């Protein structure tokens, strides 16, 4: 059973991702997506009903570090440290004023 990838789905995803794509690009991405998603479908043949998710190897690696290698994974003390200088940070913004980012107005003047 393969998912039906069509123009509407690609357009919906592009809206969610805040990426504008032209009509030509929609066709190209639709084609790419079809082949990639078809390929990913093979994962469905694996029964994972008794398997836990592994979203980041950190947890298992640290467990192994503690149990097998005798390490300790105590966390650092939670203390206040200086943050980045605001003046330096805003300098990279395309548009800023008084150490604040400037954007297009979102509420119209009445």
């Amino acid at each position, binding site marked *: 059973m393969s998912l039906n990838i069509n123009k509407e789905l690609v357009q919906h995803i592009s809206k*969610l*991702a805040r990426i*504008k794509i032209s009509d030509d690009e929609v066709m190209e991405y639709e084609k790419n*997506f079809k082949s990639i998603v078809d390929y990913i479908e093979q994962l469905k043949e694996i029964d994972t009903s008794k398997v836990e998710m592994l979203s980041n190897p950190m947890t298992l*690696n640290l467990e192994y*570090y503690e149990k097998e290698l005798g390490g300790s994974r105590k966390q650092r003390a939670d203390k206040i440290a200086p943050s980045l200088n605001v003046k330096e940070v805003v300098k990279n913004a395309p548009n800023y004023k008084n150490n604040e980012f400037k954007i297009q107005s979102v509420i119209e003047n009445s």
Partner: protein
Amino acid sequence: METIYNAHLALKDKKISAKELCAEHIKVAKENLNNTFITLTEDYALEKAKKIDNAGIKSFLDGIPFSLKDLFITKNIRTTAGSKMLYNYVPPYEGTTSANLQNSGAVLIGKVGCDEFGMGSSNENTAFGAVNFPMNKDYLPGGSSGASAVSVLEGSSLFSMGTDTGGSVRLPANFCGLVGYKPTYGRVSRYGQIAYASSLDQASPFARTPLDIAIIMDAITKNDEKDSTQAPIGAMNSAEKILKNKETKLSLAIGIDRSMVDNCREDVRDNLNDSIKLLEKRGVKFKDISLPHLKYSVAVYYVIATSEASSNLARFDGVHFGYSAKGGQDLEDSYALSRSEGFHEEVKRRILLGTFCLSSGYSDEYYSHACKVRKLIYNDFQNAFNECDYVYSPVCATTSFKKDELMTPLQMYMNDLYTIPVNLAGLPSMAIPYGKSSMNSLPTGFQLIGNSFKDEDLILDGHKIFEVLK
């Protein structure tokens, strides 16, 4: 004097000064035969080298010229990620990897190109032009850290730092005949490394020998309070151990899934079988193991890596930093316009794919399910490590590929079939060159994969194996 260690000895014996050594390498960089560098830091480098000459050579890295993939944040030095999106970005802070290397005495001579945000296996997806492969101009150096490999190969750096998310260091190392090392996930801080897929990314060095890799790893494994995913193990001390070691016998058990070697192209397969025979003669016991879920790695990777990328790259909105498009109708529209114009096609493809994998109605079916298969891949390796010290694997089924070889995105992704499982399981792996192809004379090689946090053992044994095979 192509290795860090040899250069160190020459510096120590005053056969060359740090300033001369750096000037030599900067000269190659400025000849710019291969489009390797995005930003050169000549004045900064020469000034630092002069200071080191005045202070005297103390550590292995004192006065050693190196380059950084342009995904590493460097304070007051432009950092582009190979993207139009960050064309003019000058970071207000220093990343940990850069800081550690520079504080250890290494001299940064510049930032080198890469596939945009680390996404690609060919080094062609970049706003700054593809990097040439000095061994044969018809071929590619591999990606995404291809320019890092080329900077070592062409002699503009004695080592280079890349990042490895699905093989982005081991693949180009393999194509270029260099040693590439991907540490255990959590061994090196990721602070100041522009994120592609956070659960897979790891800073990874290129050098000519495992001893040089040891010297680099010793400098970049310090504890960093700024990355909570780093294990607080502290810095390694592997270079001294390699130099003190006199034992050359290889009493190791190495696991191998023969089908992985059998599936390689003939020229690669022959050389891999050759290396196995040689290692057996020197005492290595090869054990047949099975890694049944590794064949799903590429599929799992493209769900997980794109999902994480779609989230990580959401920060690029054309407001806070980076490229900002003109002419948006309103705020929402200018976000979308900036992202569409600022990102390269491959990055957009991956963001879109990741957005799809995480979207309502599909995230259980794709993302959650892929994370479960990821656990099965992790389990395969753990089962193997019950029987052996390391796992032997190809890096790529072929040598480097030709520039004009047209591949679909999926065909391109398949180049990473052997490197991806290591990132999914968070393991360390060293790509070791061995032999030249009988078809095109380009380098071939293999990788040695260790268990979590066995980095030091892997580097010491990798050194012995490298010496036996060279």
